[in-house]
């Protein structure tokens, strides 16, 4: 009864890591070399465009297009030779109006994600815990709204929004995103509720909590990793979206992806600002990506119930 288990969870993690070590050690040197080479190539392949874009965003146009003479392999290093400048970023905000685009993007994505996650959490809990007729069909119907690509619905949506007078408004854009985000968040969060042992909620119920209190004080905190993950994914979807923003958002609710297309003018392609805008678009996504990873890994229910 008096076994000391304070360090138990940490130990468990460590032992898992050790297991993995042993598996890797069993590999032959050749297999390991191949793994390293393949992974290195893959990293270069995926990260090189990002690096060039990032560097291009803080170079002058002349520096960005400077190429070494043919056959001069050491000249590759010259892509790192430049004096950093913020001129492209300044131009984005002063001439191209990107401040507003970022704002629109933020409002539309966070607003839609908030609505989708709030309603999604309620809906997911209902689907996960409630027992009602044709529950499976309803669940399927909800996910089926995500099966067709967005392009399929964009024309009817355009006419609906036109009829409602919501074209070129942020509200319209939020609603458009929510139609897609809601079904997604219901399904994602439902999975987390399904994994929660029902007894924990029953215990709270018996301890004197009403249905609503059990939902608020037990179910939601325990499904929090899923709810946060779903929120982040909804934000990413909307922030990243071009189609809805271009068609529904129109002129007055432009977001960053739409703004980027305007940097290709009839006269020239504004490569410097284009690179800067891309970086602006990517940074929040990377930040949120790191955040979501942390939340998805978290297993809050571990150890509360006999396994």
């Amino acid at each position: 009864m008096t076994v000391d288990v304070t360090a138990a969870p940490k130990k468990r993690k460590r032992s898992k890591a050790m297991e993995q070590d042993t598996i890797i050690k069993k590999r032959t040197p050749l297999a390991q070399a191949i793994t390293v080479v393949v992974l290195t190539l893959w990293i270069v392949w995926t990260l090189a465009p990002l690096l060039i874009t990032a560097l291009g965003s803080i170079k002058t146009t002349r520096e960005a297009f400077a190429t070494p003479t043919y056959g001069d392999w050491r000249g590759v290093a010259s892509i790192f030779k430049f004096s950093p400048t913020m001129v492209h970023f300044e131009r984005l905000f002063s001439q191209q109006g990107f401040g507003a685009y970022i704002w629109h993007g933020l409002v539309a994505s966070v607003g839609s994600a908030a609505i989708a996650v709030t309603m999604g959490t309620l809906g997911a809990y209902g689907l996960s815990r409630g027992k009602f007729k044709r529950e499976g069909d309803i669940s399927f119907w909800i996910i089926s709204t995500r099966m067709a690509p967005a392009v399929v619905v964009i024309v009817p949506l355009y006419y609906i929004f036109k009829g409602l007078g919501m074209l070129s408004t942020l509200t319209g854009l939020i609603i458009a995103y929510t139609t897609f985000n809601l079904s997604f968040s219901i399904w994602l969060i439902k999975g987390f509720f399904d994994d929660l042992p029902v007894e924990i909620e029953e215990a709270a119920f018996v301890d004197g909590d009403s249905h609503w209190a059990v939902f608020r004080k037990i179910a939601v905190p325990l499904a929090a990793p899923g709810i946060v993950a779903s929120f982040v994914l909804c934000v990413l979807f909307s922030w990243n979206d071009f189609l809805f923003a271009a068609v529904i958002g129109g002129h007055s609710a432009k977001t960053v992806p739409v703004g980027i297309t305007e940097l290709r003018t009839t006269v020239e392609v504004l490569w410097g600002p284009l690179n800067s805008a891309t970086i602006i678009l990517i940074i929040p996504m990377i930040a949120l990506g790191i955040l979501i990873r942390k939340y998805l890994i978290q297993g809050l229910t571990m150890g509360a119930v006999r396994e």
Partner: protein
Amino acid sequence: MAQVKLENVWKKYGDVEAVKDLSIQCKDREFLCLLGPSGCGKSSTLRMIAGLEHITDGKIYMDEAVVNDVEPYKRDIAMVFENYALYPHKKVYENLAYPLRVQKRSQAEIDQRVKRAAEILEIGDLLDRWPRQLSGGQKQRVAIGRAIVRDPKVFLLDEPISHLDAKLRTHMRGELKRLHRDLDATMIYVTHDQLEAMTMADRIAVMNFGLLQQLGTPDEVFNHPRNKFVAGFLGDPPINFIPCVLHRSSGYQLVNDQFKLQLPDLVIRKLAKKDLPDGMAVDLGLRPESFELFTSQTAGTEMTGKVYVTEPLGEDIIIDILLGKERMKARTVIGQSWQIDAPIFMKVRYDRVHLFDSKTEESLLA
């Protein structure tokens, strides 16, 4: 504290009848055990009392009030779940304090009650831990602690110690029984372990296939089982059933191809009232403790078998005996040397025999 009464309660899951026409009364301050194999409806019954399952038909009373449609949180019950169901996102202290926080008690009172419960269950040094940092036995204590911090009308316990290891289980049996006495509480306890029921309960309700088989004190259900199921479910090693034919030619005789037992007056007196037909098929129920065993023919031995195997248990020894085609177990104190395949002579202790109608499986002596 309160009494709980079930009146003709039914529970159906679709076409499956989990609980059939159950009527039980749990008296105020009683320790009532619902005992039965898995799937017998005992957990469904407990969950209906808790309000976690809808009642298909019948009525459940707490004190005088019908609680069929009362939500669990308004029933003033405390429940300990089989898998403990601690709140994983709250530390042990907050787990214990939870029912009190719901009732909006003052912090001082919460503190005092949590400390008191922790003291009773000896978990005072765990209050600052997370549930995931506890061992099974500790979690179980916290789960019980969460039930006893307040004074509910009824405690409901759903196999709370069945997942602990054997030693801890034995310890907790005593602890729970003492807790019942100290709290002076009404407790309904679900278990599939007859030993738990026998040792702890004031009364046992034995269930099978959703039907109440017998309700009585441990002594009643053990020594006066109403049917074959109850007799077979209680006792370890289980009771031996030997098929026989009842002859009434000269007094009452039990005849089997291996033996012929002349029933004494003590048994006949109970049978006489029933007017049983001659040649009726019956099952003789003999608990492992209901014989005297001899290595050689002795005056009064009525059955002869062969030692199949012996299982010494330190103090006692369990002997598997082959009686014709039947296998039976007998328990006796260790001392004599029992040789495998050697003949063994048995003398039945008639004050301990049970007789069941082979067809209806009902007891003929009840």
